[in-house]
Structure formats: structure tokens, C-alpha cells
């Protein structure tokens, strides 16, 4: 396991930056939300990686097992995932309303429409 070292964290950062890039660069609101999800998942991966102990197993107590991975990070991320879907749903609802109001979900067109008004 030694060679893994910080590999997980680098992957987390790469994923985070990809999500960040989509959020900044994409013109489409739905794709922005997907980018946000990628960003969010990268944070989940970071927490779960921090909780893993080499040689440990799942934190469900059983006879004959002494080393468990960290249950606290699991709890934090578990609730975060469900809250994440709730916020994504809210975001999508807003996108639907924007689409009904402006007839488009492209950011630049929305800005153009706003300038006209």
C-alpha cells in the first residue's frame, strides 16, 4: 500500500478541478449542475479516503476483528450525499423555472435576454 501514498488526494484534486472547470466554463445550466455534482463527489472521495485504515474493515463490529476504518467520516458523507441530492433537485427546479421564463438554459442567452429587457 506504500506506493499509494497521496495518490487518492491527487485524484480528488483532479476531479475537483474538472468539476470546477465545468462549472466555470460550461454555458449550459444543467451541465453546470453536473459539474457541481462531480465537485461534490470529489469531496466525498476525499473524506472517505481519509477514513480508510490499511488493513481495517467496515465499521460493523464483529468478533475477531480489531481494526476498523473510521466510521465518523462515513456518517458525515452519508448525510452529505442525501442533502446533495436534495440541493441538486432544488437546483434543477430552478433550471426548469428559468427555462419556462426565458425559453433557454444557456447562460449567455439568458444574459442577452436580460439586457434586452
Amino acid at each position, binding site marked *: 500500500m506504500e506506493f499509494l501514498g497521496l495518490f487518492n488526494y491527487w485524484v480528488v484534486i483532479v476531479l475537483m478541478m474538472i468539476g470546477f472547470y465545468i462549472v466555470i466554463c460550461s454555458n449550459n445550466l444543467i451541465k453546470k449542475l453536473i459539474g457541481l455534482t462531480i465537485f461534490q463527489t470529489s469531496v466525498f472521495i476525499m473524506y472517505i479516503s481519509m477514513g480508510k485504515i490499511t488493513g481495517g*474493515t*467496515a465499521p*460493523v463490529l464483529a468478533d475477531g476483528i480489531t481494526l476498523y476504518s473510521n466510521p465518523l467520516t462515513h456518517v458525515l458523507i452519508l448525510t452529505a450525499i442525501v442533502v446533495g441530492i436534495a440541493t441538486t433537485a432544488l437546483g434543477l427546479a430552478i433550471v426548469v423555472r428559468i*427555462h419556462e421564463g426565458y*425559453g*433557454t*438554459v444557456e447562460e449567455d*442567452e439568458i444574459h442577452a435576454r436580460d439586457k434586452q429587457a
Partner: protein
Amino acid sequence: MFTAVTIAVLVAMALALFRAYAGPTLYDRILAVNVFGTKTVLLIAIVGFLMGRPEFLDIAMVYALMNFITVIGILHFFEYSAPGKSANSETVKDQ
């Protein structure tokens, strides 16, 4: 031996991933996601044995379930909307 099967499943996953990326049609992508989901079910089941705690197979069950529901969902929303219909049609929809 579990190792060999795990590698086989991982290779299959990678190939399905490529198909999901390349397309070309909508249905190819759905198929790829479906295959990918089934392979994930297998991977979880095998990894449980590989890591020596195979009692957590419930997760594989959820994967199988969600895989099915996703495919149904895609068909529900996209089957009867002609694939090219919605392409940029929103830009002309104006008052």
C-alpha cells in the same frame, strides 16, 4: 482466482465505459450504462469475497435495482421523443 475474475470485470467495465463515451446512438449509451451497472454488481460481489467480509452483499442488490430503474427511466423520458427533435429547438421557441 478472485483476482483474475476481478481483472476480467474491470476490463469489461473499461470497455463499456468507452462505448458509453463513443456512442454513437442514444441506445448504445443506454446499453453501455446497463452493462456497466451489471458489471458493477459483479465487482461488488467479488470484492466482498476478496476482502474477506462477504456479508455486505445488500449493496450489490441496490446496484442491480437502480440499474433497472435507470434504464426504465431513460426509456420513459426519451423513447417517444424523436431523438433529433429537441436539438436546439428551444432557441426558436419565442413569443
